Structures are given as structure tokens and as C-alpha cells.
């Protein structure tokens, strides 16, 4: 585990086929109904005393066949379904899907729509990270941050509600732009929120960053190297905390991200503590982006010219965005009809969860909870 060159090979054939003949080894089932698995995740743990020798994830409890449903709905009708995958970052899901179909149609959303999209998506990233922080801290035993983060997340949900009527599964965007113009006082609300939330993030950090218990529980826990992250396809804050400076908003900019100045925070050690720091820094970067977007939001139409019946030409497209959890991709095949021939969702949580086995080996049972929390998975997205 500690040898960086051999760590990936842990997942090789030999290792996974090893029989449980060692008398000290104990197989324990965790979940699927377990409050710290963030949904219905079942983990089969192989233990030697308190030490984790290996584990296997059993998923699929929330499988709803989203990809199959897509083949039986029109492009427009499928749009709200994507919100139900990663339900704590529904806006990001919608953005990815709308942009993928727009690419397939070879159209672009107008600048004003792109700015609105960026503001809402970044607000949603903040909300997602806040929810992650609250629940992750709760898992580890710090109860207070949950109340702080949920109190502040509420303000974001209020903005969503005022904008489109929904708090969680927002369906905020449409193919070609946005359906709704911003409401009266939208900019004011967002700016007010920015000044409100900036000191709150410091407050979270005050509670945790130098807290001895927090540091002990997170430092050197669930370490993963950059090399292993890449081999396992892990993306998002987990990859960045291992030191890879890669963010799709910079690498392959979409929406209006090209116009904003922001940093990609990275860590060095790839442990749970670094992932915490990276996400905290990302929250601040999101605030920066929102500030710039709301200051420079252009006037103009919010919808591109899209025919009422969406019928992309025959062809296929892959489009991905940087969702709060990592690379969220849509691979859409069109047969020229009004319904997609195939929609494949590349969910970040699903691929990231694959790293759980590697990250937990050699750790204590209690740390498994910390590692599941730090991966920031949403089972609705893992199972689709």
C-alpha cells in the first residue's frame, strides 16, 4: 500500500481472487441501510482485527434505468430526469445534458444564458460542497458543522426557488439556454449572499482546520497517489488533492468559464485532510467566479434559436463538465429522430467509488466511514 509503484496492482487478479483462509480474517457487512454510507451503498469488509484488508462495494440499490428511460423520451422530456441523478448538484447535471444536446444540434447558448448558467452552477457547487462538509464532519463525529452548513445552504436554495420554483431538482436550464429570465433583484440577492457566505466559510474552517480531533481523524487517512487516481479514472477534488492540477473548467472550458479568473486549488498528500482543504478552497473560488459573473452579466436574449421539436442530425457526441464531484460526461447518439438513440451518462461518483477499495486498505474500520465521506459520492448518481 505504501509503495507507490505497486499500489495499483492491489486491484489485480491475484489479489481479488485470494481466498479467506486466514483464521484472523473476518468478513463484515456494512449497509446498505447505514446512515454513514450516504444512501444505499453496501460494503463487504474483510478485516483483520480493526484493520481493513480489502473491501467490495455492492451497488445498484437505487438503479432506475435512467439511460433506458432516455431512449423512450424526447430530448426535452429527458431533461428533468438528469436532475435526479446527482440530486444535490442538479444544476450541474442539467448543464451537462443541455450543453451536450446543444453541441449535437451545433448551436450555442447566448452569452447572457451562459452567465446565468455559470452563476447557478457555481452556487450549486457551493451547496454541494456545503452538504458534503456537513455530512462528512457528522460522520467523523463533529456535529456542529452540519448545522452551520445547512443554515447557509438554505440561502442558496432560496435563490434557486426564487429563480425557477424548485429547490433541489431545479430543471433550471433548457436546451438552447434558460427558460426563465432572472427575477427582479436576482443580482442583488446573489451579491448579498456572497457577502453573507464568505465569512461563514472562514467559520467552518475555524471549527475544523486546526481542530485536533479533525486533524487526527483525517490526516494520512485514505491516501491515494496521483498515479493511482489517473489509473482509476478518479476526477474532481479527489484527483486535485493528490496534486494533479486539472479542472475541466480550465482544461476544456465550457459555458462562460473562459472569461473568469480563478485558481485550481490542489493538495499534495492525497489524504482526507487535503481533500477537505481543496474543497474549502474550491468554495472560495466559486465565490470569486460568481462575483465576476454577476458583475459582468450581459444583456440580451437567454434562448438560442431552437426549433420546438428537437431533432438533432444523425451523429454522436461526448460532452463533459466539471461537476462538484468530478467529470460528468454525456455520450449521446442520435438517429435523427426526436428521441435519443442512446444516452450514456459517465457519472463521476461511480468511477470515483471504484477507488474506495484501494483507499481503505490498511486503514481502520472507523476510517472507512471517513473515506466514503471524503469521496463525496451520491448514490443516485452511482446507480442511475
Amino acid at each position, binding site marked *: 500500500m505504501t509503495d507507490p509503484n505497486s499500489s495499483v496492482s492491489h486491484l489485480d487478479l491475484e489479489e481479488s481472487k485470494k481466498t479467506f483462509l486466514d483464521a484472523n480474517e473476518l468478513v463484515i457487512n456494512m449497509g446498505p441501510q447505514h446512515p454513514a454510507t450516504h444512501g444505499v451503498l453496501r460494503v463487504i469488509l474483510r478485516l483483520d482485527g480493526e484493520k481493513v484488508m480489502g473491501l467490495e462495494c455492492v451497488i445498484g440499490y437505487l438503479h432506475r434505468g435512467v439511460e*433506458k428511460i432516455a431512449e423512450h423520451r424526447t430530448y426535452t422530456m429527458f431533461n428533468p430526469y438528469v436532475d435526479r441523478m446527482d440530486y444535490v448538484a442538479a444544476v450541474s447535471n442539467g448543464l451537462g445534458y443541455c450543453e451536450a444536446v446543444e453541441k*449535437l444540434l451545433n448551436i450555442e447558448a447566448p452569452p447572457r444564458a451562459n452567465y446565468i448558467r455559470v452563476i447557478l452552477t457555481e452556487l450549486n457547487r457551493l451547496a454541494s460542497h456545503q452538504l458534503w462538509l456537513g455530512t462528512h464532519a457528522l460522520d467523523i463525529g463533529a456535529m456542529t458543522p452540519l448545522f452551520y452548513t445547512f443554515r447557509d445552504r438554505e440561502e442558496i436554495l432560496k435563490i434557486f426557488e426564487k429563480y425557477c420554483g424548485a429547490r433541489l431538482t431545479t430543471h433550471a436550464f433548457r436546451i438552447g439556454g434558460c427558460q426563465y429570465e432572472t427575477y427582479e433583484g436576482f443580482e442583488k440577492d446573489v451579491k448579498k449572499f456572497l457577502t453573507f457566505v464568505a465569512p461563514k466559510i472562514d467559520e467552518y474552517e475555524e471549527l475544523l482546520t486546526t481542530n485536533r480531533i479533525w486533524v487526527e481523524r483525517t490526516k494520512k487517512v485514505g491516501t491515494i497517489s496521483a498515479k493511482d487516481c489517473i*489509473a482509476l479514472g478518479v476526477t474532481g477534488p479527489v484527483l486535485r488533492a493528490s496534486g494533479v492540477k486539472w479542472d475541466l473548467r480550465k482544461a476544456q472550458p465550457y459555458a462562460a468559464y473562459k472569461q473568469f479568473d480563478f485558481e485550481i486549488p490542489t493538495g499534495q498528500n492525497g489524504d482526507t485532510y487535503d481533500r477537505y482543504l481543496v474543497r474549502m478552497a474550491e468554495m472560495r473560488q466559486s465565490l470569486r467566479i460568481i462575483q465576476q459573473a454577476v458583475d459582468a452579466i450581459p444583456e440580451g436574449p437567454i434562448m438560442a434559436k431552437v426549433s420546438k421539436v428537437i431533432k438533432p*442530425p*444523425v451523429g454522436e*457526441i461526448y460532452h463533459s463538465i466539471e461537476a462538484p464531484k468530478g467529470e460528468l460526461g454525456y455520450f449521446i447518439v442520435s438517429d*435523427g429522430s426526436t428521441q435519443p438513440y442512446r444516452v450514456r451518462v459517465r457519472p463521476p461518483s*461511480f468511477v470515483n467509488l471504484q477507488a474506495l477499495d484501494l483507499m481503505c486498505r490498511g486503514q481502520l474500520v472507523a476510517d472507512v466511514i471517513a473515506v466514503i465521506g471524503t469521496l463525496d459520492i451520491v448514490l443516485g448518481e452511482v446507480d442511475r
Partner: protein
Amino acid sequence: MSDETKSPSPQPEGEKPSSDKIAGGISSGTPPPGGAKPPAPPEKPAAAAGTTPPKPAAPGEKPAAAAAPAKPAAPAKPAGPTPQPWDSPLVAKLTRQFGSGIQPLTYLGQNYLQVDRSLIPTILQMLRDEEQFDYCVDITAVHYPKREKQFDLVWILYSFSKNERVRVKTQIADGEHIPSAVPIWVAANWLERETFDMFGIQFDGHPDLKRILLPDGWKGHPLRKDYGIIQQDQEWVQINLGIESGQ
């Protein structure tokens, strides 16, 4: 009911990949004809349905279906782009080595390689080792039931050092096996399991090829086109959930 409206549409689809191939074949030999055609009939899409000489025969009852087979003549929609040949140093290298086994194409600015099934392991290995495509983004499949080789298998790859994406595609028949990519990218593990679960495609050499989203004893592969949207494994439901049916 949307079930039934959908089922006819795969039929024209069966021919599309082949027409794609034709487009690729023509253009790889002589690019101009493909490019020369679109300007000629710009405002004839409606008339084209009646006048297309290439396929006056069977499937053209619905106007939508008629537009599809007419594609080689490229009258369909003025906006509809077609896959173009893709040219780059990487492609030159690959064609030098593999010749006609691969067709490099680009569509809406995205590059992909249509590869012979037999070349797949070599090409994937080479893309990772020599071209730095070190991140396997996704592995998935698309089902075309009317085609002889029913499945399109797709690998989506990304290179961190080049900031470039490429898709590798191949066609395989139902029941045909394909070597697993797990020795190349560990990330392929769950992705291949999901493809197996949803389409029933067997990956040789996969460490633990079993269902991932559906329960182990389930029969059928839901993302195949012949699997209905409300269809389920009645027997499994009855035995394990103790109910007649969920629907």
C-alpha cells in the same frame, strides 16, 4: 406506448452506421466529392424525399425514414454535418502501421477511430503507452439490433499531457467476446462490468466479470433494444421480492 413508437426507429438506424462508413470510405479516398455535394441541393430537402434515386425501395414510408437512407446523396438538411476524415500526426502514424484496419473520422470537432475488432487490444495498448492516453474516461456500447454486428463498443480516452480526447469504436456481433482493457487501465473494471450488465458483452480476461447494477441472478440485459422499458425478470421478482410484479 412510447415503446411502440420507438421500435420502428431502430430500423433505419441499422443502415446508418453503414452509411457513415460509406461517407468515411469515400472521403478517405477522394475528399472533394463529399464536400462538393452539399452546395448543389441546398433548398431541396422536401423534394429530395420523392426524387432520391439511390433508395426508392422499401423503408421510406415515414418522411423521417426517407431522409435517413438518402444520406449518401447528402440532400437531407443543410445544417446536418457529416463525419469528416481526421488528419493528425497520430492518425498518420496509426494508418502507417495498421492501414485500412482503422478509419480516423471527426464529427463536430470530436475525433474518433473506427477500428477493426481484431486490432482493438493493440491499438488501446498503443494509445496508452505511446500516445499518453492515460485516462480511460468511459467504456460503453450501443445496440443496433438490425445490424449483422449488433454492437458498437466505445472507449472514450483522454490524455492529460495533450489535453485531447479520442473515441475508439468497434463493431462486434452478439455473443462475440472482446479482450478486457483492465490490464491497460484499472478504471475499466467497473465500466466493463456495467457494459456486461447492460448489454451482455463478454470481456475476456476481466478479473471479476459479474453484474454490477442489477442483482446477480437477473436474466436479460436491459439496454439492448429488444428489452422493453417496463420489462423485468418476473421470476426473479417473484422469488426475491415475493410479489407478482412491480408494475
